[in-house]
């Protein structure tokens, strides 16, 4: 009896309080709530943890030899710019010098693999943007027989793991004579199902049908419409897709390892792998390679981070 009465009283009190606060509660969604100091501290911590490996690799790249790793007590976490540490490491990974006690990094020419990766990224990004936007435009805005089934097919393949075809792909490359050439890592990446999907979604929303219709009334051919009308409008989406494609191509590992692993066509992924291989790998050398390999994408993120973030968030919402 008394319990119920107390509860009822509490309930009454709460209702009054709620009514009083109703006005204040508007605008109480998370987006409208100011972040507390805890938010900032926590997020800053998360970002520091995310950056730590790169920082550590950068630090190690300035150390000559391995002595500084073997410290007693707190680990050494500061770069050393006093000596020629970075120059020394650079010369080793580019095979200019081969100091005693170091393994012969014969299978690694870091500069060459850097160049190879740049070529691959440039070709892959250009081709992906062109082919995927063409197909995306056709799927979004043109009428042709079999359009919808073909598009569903593209969407379906998005869920197939890339590694499934690796054995078959290698045999095909061998038959074509492309193993250990840049063709092997470039040609299969020239198009992506995700690219077509992303472009189609963007074009569908961004370009009104009437606009294309009016261009046609003026006598523009389909390809003319693509070039003069579609391409200028979808430029931001192309930027986003280009960045995401570049990240993927630069970071390619398992396929690059089997297709060009030990050749002059070696890209960054297998080059780093080979720095790690061998009986006496040198930590400083490995991390110098890791640091240098990470730099281009880090620069890209610094310049175009906003677009990359937007691409990931937009692409996901539409999926």
């Amino acid at each position, binding site marked *: 009896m008394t319990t119920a009465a107390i509860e009822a009283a509490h309930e009454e009190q709460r209702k009054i309080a709620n009514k009083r606060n109703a006005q204040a509660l508007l605008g109480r969604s998370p987006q409208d709530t100011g972040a507390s100091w805890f938010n900032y501290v926590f997020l800053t911590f998360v970002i520091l943890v995310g950056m730590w490996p790169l920082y550590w690799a950068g630090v190690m790249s300035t150390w000559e030899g391995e002595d500084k790793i073997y410290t007693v007590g707190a680990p050494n976490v500061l770069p050393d710019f006093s000596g020629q540490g970075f120059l020394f490491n650079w010369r080793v990974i580019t095979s200019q010098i081969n100091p005693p006690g170091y393994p012969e990094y014969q299978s690694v020419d870091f500069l060459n693999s850097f160049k190879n990766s740049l070529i691959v990224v440039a070709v892959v990004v250009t081709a992906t943007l062109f082919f995927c936007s063409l197909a995306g435009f056709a799927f979004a805005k*043109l009428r042709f027989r079999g359009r919808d089934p073909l598009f569903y097919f593209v969407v379906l393949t998005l869920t197939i793991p890339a590694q499934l075809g690796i054995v078959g792909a290698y045999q095909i490359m061998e038959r074509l004579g492309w193993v250990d050439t840049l063709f092997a890592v470039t040609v299969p990446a020239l198009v992506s199902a995700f690219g077509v999907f992303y472009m189609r979604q963007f074009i569908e929303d961004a370009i009104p049908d009437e606009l294309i219709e009016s261009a046609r009334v003026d006598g523009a051919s389909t390809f003319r419409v693509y070039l003069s009308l579609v391409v200028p*409008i979808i430029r931001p989406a192309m930027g986003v897709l280009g960045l995401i494609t570049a990240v993927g191509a630069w970071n390619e590992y*398992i396929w690059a390892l089997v297709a060009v692993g030990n050749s002059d066509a070696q890209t960054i992924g297998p080059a780093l792998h080979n720095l790690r291989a061998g009986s006496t790998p040198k930590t400083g050398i490995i991390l110098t390679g890791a640091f240098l390999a990470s730099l281009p994408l880090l620069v890209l993120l610094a310049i175009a981070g906003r677009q990359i973030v937007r691409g990931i968030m937009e692409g996901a919402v539409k999926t």
Partner: protein
Amino acid sequence: MSATSDAAAAAVTGTGATKVDARPRGPKKSSIWARFDHAVVPYILISPFFILFVAFGIFPIVYSALISFQTYRNEYPRYISGESQVLFTRRWAGLENYQKVITSSDFGQALFNTFGLFIFSLIPQLLFALIIASLLNRRLRAQTFFRVGILVPYITPIVASSLVFVTFFAERYGQANWLLGLISFGAINHDVVAGDPGTNVPGIDWRNTRLASWTALVIMINWKWTGYNALLYLAAMQSIPKDVYEAAALDGAGAWRQLWSITVPMIRPMVIFTVVLGTIGSLQLFAEPVLFDINPETGDGGGNRHLWRTVAQLIWRVGWKDTNFGYAGAMSWVLFVVVVLVAAFNAWLTNRLGGRR
């Protein structure tokens, strides 16, 4: 999307959302060209994509299925001859490779490792991502900085970051053991070894037990993907209507309660998406376990007892070290079937768990 298209839409006053009729009505075009432009050009536009995609995306998959029914191997793989002696056998073998996959303990063990790593990495990863996303989903100063900042692991080459983590988890002088030593875990006493780097430091040997090696790998995986998933969750959270939260606040729900009772159920499609994506990704785990080995080129992977050897790693070993392509192809296909089943099961499970509220 952009101001351009809005202006364009305003400039053109038309009705109906029908698809564009490809027939040009301009007076200058001949009708043959018009018909060509209408009927053939769309196929020309999609053909570069489909030709390349079928040749290098679909055909390899079909072809590896074909190879999986063959005995296709080098009779002198590196571990027998030690040299690059080559004698390829290639003949039909029926289900022999599949039988081997199912009965071999190697594959079973690799599947066990892959699953273990998948479960122990995906769950904490998505929980962390959820928390980070909900913290990002506030009125935040330097918003762009934080969003871009959490993407640093995503753009770091996976080989590069794995190599750094290998030094982090070194048994001697690794920072992980040093950190654990600070809280007297693993009983590292650097004073004992002062001046004698040869002494065996009694820290955790990260490659010696399954628990230790899995912990190290799970940390590597989650380091890489948590930020990315957080951005996906953030995207979904921002499309939740604000008045839902206002109503909840009126009923006295606190921030934590709001997260679990409103945010999570409302972003359920995205949670399912990340679970499926994460399943497909984790079951193909390759870079971290390979580079975690003392020497990724020799040995059979996953340490002496293959404690952390994953299926993808095993496929690589069997295909390109033992040059037994038929067996590797069969393993790929078994893995694929497992991936599909698990992804479907996870989607179903996530759907149900979310549905209970």
